[in-house]
């Protein structure tokens, strides 16, 4: 059956058609739509599948992995930095293995579009000594998902599927199974303590030896099934190109665009590679070029004097794949001597196009809360550690001083408070991130008496990755305030107000409390909403639209530098203007934000959705 699908949806269908009946994970761009896709199919076809978000990636992996030990076909989905969180579980699971099937989907983000690192999950698979599959297109993503599930069951080891953003978020017509005849698996835990409970040193040593043997067996399988047929079809000649994932599609197009011919081998499983068998094929060529992203994973496994790639400075080492980069690599190895056809002619517009830096959505309560925090805890005397989520975009307002990784704001607040007691440390974290990894560091700060302010911004959703639900909202609601109180301290509570003075007044109270606290953190939960949350936002947004009284506007930059709402910009008269198409009607700027009160209600506002 032919169907137009995004890569992540193709993976979701692949899981269903491989009879995977336990899926867990944690949202993260570009992986998020995989699990939500499974949830949609489950609902549509009423399938008996467990498909739920875990509290974090490690939890998600462990839930799925236990299912795989008990004979289920399981999958855990996450983004590449999420794998860092799940890595503790993965490293051990790679020794122990599984009876059913365990597919780990770790989606990479070459080019850092929405991630703090460009790390390569294939290298992580190599580190953990588990096989990894690297799809080039949504069609591959569907096929390799099914293949990965089968291989995991065959070799009794977790298998990784590593799609990159250009696969996850690519769209094409794919060919998939005609019908869905879903057969759930029987879960049956079989006691085998030496295997499931192997303890160091003897137990794990044995599993370590087995791991090495297994990876060699899989490398042989890789050769026989995926590589040998391709190498046998090769012609030999000046150049052999070895690629994997998106590198394959970019290479094929570049060769076609440039009118060049070379043998191209597509590596389906970049680890484990049968290096000797592959290197023996190099005799038929003058040079070998490796095209892959983002790290030299294949290149390092097949290193050879004829091999060119990132480590020889032939192919770019950072940022995502482009045909232009392959063209340049072909020029460097003197395989292509023509011009750069991907170079755009310079066009002088006579001005530079204004940047459109990432910003919080118009109407987002985070903006107002950051504004209120900075009104009370002044920049000069404060340190503002923050965390990963939509609210990271508060950095444009000057409301954030440091970012590290999920949940780090809390422990870093401890560290800053210890290192520089002359400053007021005010940390911000979202509700999703607090549930994910903010609780242990808060516990740490409480029992060690670290003095800072922690503001938990609770919009009851994981907004940035597409508004997945948080533990406060599904099944049995969990309240952040009670978690904090359960650790033995008070949790101040505030409901976001579109009247700015109420937010400012609240943080004045927070400051009093913080100054009275000689030890331990002052914790605050601010109840908010996400402006894009169709279920909750309408209850909160007042639909009061705003315009500017140009006589009052003195062009002081306050709104464009500290408040930073996207609809606000200067017009040709040098006065602030509100873009009526962007204003969300939140009324947040009517108070406090403008020193001359130039923002006024626009009674005649062109109502949206007429």
């Amino acid at each position: 059956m032919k169907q137009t699908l995004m890569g992540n949806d193709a993976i979701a269908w692949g899981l269903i058609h491989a009879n995977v009946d336990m899926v867990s994970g944690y949202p993260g761009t570009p992986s998020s739509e995989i699990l939500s896709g499974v949830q949609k199919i489950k609902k549509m076809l009423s399938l008996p599948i467990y498909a739920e978000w875990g509290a974090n990636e490690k939890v998600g992996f462990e839930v799925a992995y236990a299912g795989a030990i008990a004979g289920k076909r399981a999958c855990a989905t996450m983004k590449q930095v999420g794998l860092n969180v799940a890595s503790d579980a993965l490293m051990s699971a790679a020794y122990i293995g599984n009876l059913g099937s365990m597919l780990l989907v770790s989606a990479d983000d070459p080019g850092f579009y929405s991630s703090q690192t460009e790390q390569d999950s294939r290298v992580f698979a190599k580190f953990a000594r588990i096989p990894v599959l690297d799809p080039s297109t949504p069609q591959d993503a569907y096929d390799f998902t099914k293949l990965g599930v089968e291989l995991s069951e065959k070799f009794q080891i977790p298998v990784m599927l590593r799609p990159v953003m250009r696969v996850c978020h690519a769209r094409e017509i794919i060919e998939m199974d005609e019908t869905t005849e879903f057969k759930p698996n029987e879960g049956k835990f079989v006691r085998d303590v030496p295997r499931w409970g192997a303890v160091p040193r003897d137990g794990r040593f044995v599993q370590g030896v087995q791991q090495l043997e297994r990876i060699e067996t899989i490398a042989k399988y890789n050769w026989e099934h995926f590589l040998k047929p391709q190498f046998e079809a090769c012609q030999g000649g000046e150049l052999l190109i070895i690629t994997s994932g998106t590198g394959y599609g970019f290479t094929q197009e570049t060769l076609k665009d440039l009118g060049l011919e070379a043998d191209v081998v597509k590596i389906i499983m970049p680890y484990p590679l049968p290096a000797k068998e592959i290197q023996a094929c190099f005799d038929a060529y003058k040079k070998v070029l490796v095209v892959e992203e983002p790290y030299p994973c294949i290149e390092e496994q097949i290193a050879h004097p004829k091999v060119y790639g990132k480590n020889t400075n032939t192919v770019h080492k950072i940022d995502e794949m482009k045909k232009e980069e392959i063209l340049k690599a072909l020029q460097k190895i003197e395989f292509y001597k023509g011009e750069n056809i991907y170079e755009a002619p310079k066009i002088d517009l006579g001005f530079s196009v204004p940047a459109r830096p990432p910003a919080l959505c118009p109407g987002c309560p985070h903006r107002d809360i950051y504004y209120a925090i900075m009104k009370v805890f002044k920049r000069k005397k404060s340190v503002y550690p923050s965390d990963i989520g939509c609210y990271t975009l508060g950095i444009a307002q000057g409301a954030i001083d440091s970012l590290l990784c999920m949940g780090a704001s809390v422990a870093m607040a401890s560290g800053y408070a210890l290192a520089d007691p002359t400053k007021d440390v005010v940390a911000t974290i979202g509700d999703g991130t607090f549930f994910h990894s903010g609780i242990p560091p808060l516990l740490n700060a409480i029992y060690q008496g670290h003095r800072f302010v922690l503001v938990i911004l609770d919009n009851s959703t994981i907004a940035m990755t597409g508004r997945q639900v948080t533990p406060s909202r599904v099944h049995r609601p969990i309240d952040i305030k009670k978690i904090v109180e359960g650790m033995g301290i008070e949790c101040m509570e505030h409901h976001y107000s579109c009247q700015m003075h109420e937010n400012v007044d609240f943080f004045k109270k927070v400051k009093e409390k913080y100054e009275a606290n000689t030890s331990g953190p002052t914790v605050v939960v601010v109840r908010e909403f996400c402006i894009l949350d169709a279920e909750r936002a309408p209850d909160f947004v007042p639909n009061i639209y705003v315009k500017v009284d140009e006589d009052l506007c003195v062009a002081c930059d306050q709104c464009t530098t500290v408040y930073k709402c996207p609809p606000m910009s200067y017009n040709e008269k040098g006065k602030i203007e509100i873009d009526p198409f962007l204003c969300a009607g939140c009324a947040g700027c009517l108070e406090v934000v403008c020193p001359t009160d130039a923002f006024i209600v626009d009674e005649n506002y062109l109502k949206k959705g007429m």
Partner: protein
Amino acid sequence: MKYQIVIAGFGGQGVVFLVKVLAICAGNRDIAFLGTENHGMSQRGGAVSCDIKIGDFTNPVIDKNQADVIIGLDSNESLRNIAFLKTGGTMVVNAKPDYPSLPFTVARADANAKALQGAFPIQGLNVYMLGVALAGVKDFPFSVEEVEKAIAQMNPKVAQQNIKILQMAMNDCK
């Protein structure tokens, strides 16, 4: 057929909707295509651009100097992506009359002004600009009928209104 289109705008303008419509057009005619989205971290108001490559392609990204058409839902976003337009390509853009002169064919319409006058709700801006593309791009790969059919398949509920906006745009361009 080999045809490459970049659709540029900012979050909330419905850039992805247009990609889906064009994808359905290709699918209905059983032509292969590959599409992808580029955006930063913003959900609303941040720069967004989408690539769609119709025909025999093996990767979804459009390189510089390759696009046959850019559909710019916003003036600045169209200019930000200008390096992707190939020599001889067409720029379809929602911009005021002071839009700079470019060494390309330009099909310009001030859709914001139209919407402000109440001609159509602002949510229809993307469909309006697709109409401008149908009217202004000589070798556009799909016919009006094909686009209308795809719009109806996308969302039957608002299909009638969207088709009205599409036709309004084409009439305005006459």
